[in-house]
Structure formats: C-alpha cells, structure tokens
C-alpha cells in the first residue's frame, strides 16, 4: 500500500484538507489539538523522517507547517496547523516524542513568539539572551 493511503487510513477524519500539489509534495491540514498524536503516528508507525517545521505569519494568525519525508519514495508530507489566536499563539510541543524536534521549536518560539507547550528546554537558540522580551524578529512590523 502506498504511503498516502496508509496515512489516510491511520488518520482518517483528522485530515481536513488533502492537497497533492505535485506528485511528491502532499499537504494536509489538521486541528491543532491533533498534532501530537499525528506526529507520533507519522514517526513511530509509518516511519517517516522529520525534516523541519516552518512558521508563516498570516494576517489573522500563524500557520505552522511540519515537513515529513518518506525517504523510500522521495515524497514530502507537510502537515499544516492554523493558530488563529494572534495575540497568544500556542501549540503542543512535539519534542517530547523525539529529541530532533527541540531546536526548530526553540527557533520558532524566539522568532515568531509561538509558545510550544510541554517543550523540555524552551530557551533562546539563535538570539542573544539579552534580546528584548516580546520582540519577535520574524514577525511583520506594522
């Protein structure tokens, strides 16, 4: 069975908006409460590899994209989450599942101000410790 069918079977109605942009680039949305469970399924059951996560600022909130690679077929599955609370964006951290996710969540936290609940070591990664609190360099300045 192909990976895309296995993902659909495992996640079922958690998947909201399935889009195959090109043959090897598949995007789907999730509710933000499902991210931890979904990441566990993708990494542990389906043995995908976590590439990285990207944050994008939207006018009304933030979008988080988690990129997973299925190396045998060369496909990239991207999980989208919409964080619609612009003032207090937060989501569950996936780092407790595997240590490889720690750094990128620290980076997104300091650059975009998105809080990762349950992160084992949420502190500055790239910015200096003296960087002013509440100033997030990757956010658009009015």
């Amino acid at each position, binding site marked *: 069975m192909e990976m895309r069918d296995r993902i659909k079977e495992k996640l079922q109605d958690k998947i909201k908006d399935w889009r195959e*942009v*090109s043959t*090897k*680039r598949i*995007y789907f949305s999730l509710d933000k409460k499902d991210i931890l469970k979904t990441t566990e399924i993708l990494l542990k059951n389906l043995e995908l*590899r*976590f*590439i*990285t996560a*990207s944050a*994008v*600022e939207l006018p009304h909130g933030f979008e988080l*994209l988690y*990129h997973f*690679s299925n*190396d*045998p*077929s*060369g*496909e*990239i599955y*991207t999980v989208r989450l919409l964080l619609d609370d612009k003032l207090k964006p937060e989501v569950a951290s996936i780092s407790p599942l*595997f*240590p*490889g*996710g*720690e*750094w*990128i969540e620290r980076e997104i936290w300091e650059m975009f101000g998105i809080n990762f609940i349950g992160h084992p070591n949420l*502190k*500055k*990664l*790239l*910015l*200096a*410790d003296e960087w002013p609190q509440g100033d997030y*360099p*990757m956010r658009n300045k009015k």
Partner: protein
Amino acid sequence: MSHKIIVPIGPYHPLQEEPEFFQLYVEGEKVVDIDIIIGYNHRGIEKLSESKHFDQVPFLVERICGICSSSHPYAYVLAVENILGGEFNIVPEKSLFIRTIIDELQRIHSHLLWLGLVGHFIGYNTVWMWAWKFREPVLDMFEMVTGNRNNYAMFKVGGVRRDIKDDDIPQIKKMLDELLPGIDLFHGAIMDDPIIKMRLKDVGRLTRQQAIEWAVVGPTARASGVNIDIRRDEPYGSSDRLDWKVIIEKDGDIFCKTVVRILELYESISLIRQCLDKMPKSGIIDADIKDIPVGEGIGRVEAPRGECFHYIVSDGTNRPLRHKIRSPSFMNVASDKVAAVGGTISDATLTLAAVDPCYCCTERVAVINKSDNSKIMNGWDLIKLSQDKTLKLKESYYGRSK
C-alpha cells in the same frame, strides 16, 4: 545544570561558516554533559530573503555557507521550480548535467576539507596537508567552469548562468584523473594504518536508533546505517540517469563516517565523468523564466553534509512571502549531545568535528570542571590532547624508538 556563558577563547576567524560554542561538562576524563550554544553568526537571511527579488535570492543564499555554497542556491531554485511545475519539466537538458557537475565538484572539495581536518585533529598533519593539496585542483576546476573558487553564482531559476565550454572538458577530465591517485592515497592511509583505525574505531558512536531519533541526515546518517540520500530518493539534476551507488556503513563511529566520505569521493568523480560524457554538446542552458505564480514549493538537495531543505511561499509578486531554510548541520550538530557524552575529552573535538561543522567551531570549545565550574581548557588544548593520544597509541604500537 547552569548555562553560564563563557567567552570563547581562541582566534576569531572572520570566515568561519558555522560558529558554535560547545560547553563540555566533564568528570575526570569523561564527558558527562554538553551544552551546544549557537547563533553567533545568525544573519537573518530568511528575513532578508523576503526583501529580495526572486532572481537575487540565489546570490543571497549562496552566502549562507562558503563550503557548500551551491547546495543552498540549488535547493532554492528547486523550491521555486516546484511552484512552476518541477525541475525536469522546465530546465533545459544541458543545464541538468551542469547542475550535477557543480553539485558533485562541491562534494569533493567539502569532503576533502573534512578529511584534512580529521587528520589534523588526530595528529596526522600529513593527511591534513595532502587534503589541502588535492583540494586545490578542485577549486581550480571551479574557477575554470564558473569563474569563481567559491560562491559560484551558477544557479538561477530555470537553468544555469554559465555554460561549460567544450574546450574545457578534456582539461576537467585530466584534472579528475589526477585526483584519483590522491584519493587512493587517503583510502589506503585510513584503511590500512592501524593507528588511525584504533583512534577512530568506536569513537563518537551514533547508533542507528539515535540517528533516527535525532533525525540526522547525510553522511552522518549513512554511517549509522540509515539509508537516505536525496540524490537517489528524490532525483534532481541528472542523478537518476547516471550509474552510482549510495554508500552505507553500519557502526556509526567516526571510522565509518570517514569511510563513507572517502568512498563518496570516488562516486562523485565517477558522476562528474559520466556527466561530461553524456552532456549534450550544444543547446540552451536557461529557460528564461520571468514570473513566479502564486503557490508554495519545497526543494531539497543532498549537500555534502546532508539534506538541505528550502520552503518558499510565493504570493504572485516578485519576492518570496516566506523563505524557510534548513541546513543539514542544524540536525547533525544537535546530535553531538548523544555522540560526545560518555566519551573522553581527548575524543571530544574529534566527535564534534565528525558531523562536519566548520573547523573554527572547535576553537570555541571550553572544558568546564564540574566541581567548581572553572574553565580549564580551550580548543587548542583539546586538539593537543587528541594529538597526544594518537602519539601514545603510536608509541605503544611501534615501540618508543619509532
């Protein structure tokens, strides 16, 4: 554990590509914990990219790293071409071969540089000097093909900027032929020298399970038995039309990492040769792309250190709305946390260097004595310690007279 900031000791090198600051916590000789502090060279390139024209971004991302300075532009143009319909659909035939040639030449010079540094760290300065000697013709080849020894400015959306002249091909082939005996020399030195084997075997081991947990990429992952190589998994350039194989080792120690890189040198030379043979003699090299439509694209290439990942969001204007970059070292350096802990201090620099970050990074190492948090050693002391260990091994192996 306290996270005291310690001013790094050692010469500050303005050209260093990835300055990291490692704080090793030691008990006696044993490393019990390690803090990795990065960000000294954060230049905000992702943000900067949002203010550049799509055609200017390759020049910007090229400057992320001086050693793999074609991987970032390549991953970026692949991401944009993903929005446009895929590299194979829009890029002219000849450009695909030129792209692979540049990509593989860069792998050769990067792996040689790494080999030289490992030689230096373990006290084999001859290996170091050899590596520099054999790396020089590779840079000459770059100069011949692209006009630059570094930052080649070859990649653009829809093609490449410069053609490889037919007159240059015999010369490139000749230089590649001359490179082979040099790599044989390394191969022999690493495989046959009992001291190097003793020094590198079982040091800084990253097991397959750890490699998967830390999501490491490239030679670091392949040395631990993780079978990934973007060139094969998601072919780009002409890599799917050439005959080559992915090098996998099982043990995950520094010896395996060295073997993987040496054997990859042979594969890269073979790939370039095949490209030069199969490349069309004439033809356009640029598809002349003007506008980038609305959309999002992901591009990735196998940089010398592993998968280099770029994500682009385009809103239909002439600038990217968002440009996310993930370099391979971002994943690999984090895994030092498991690879270095449990080893001895004399192996620490070697282990930290084994994932192939920049060598100047090790000058930022400080060893902290756990009992009173006092700083006892800097980077050069650690390299000295590592070299002394090799010397002792040599003495016990050959006897004092040698």
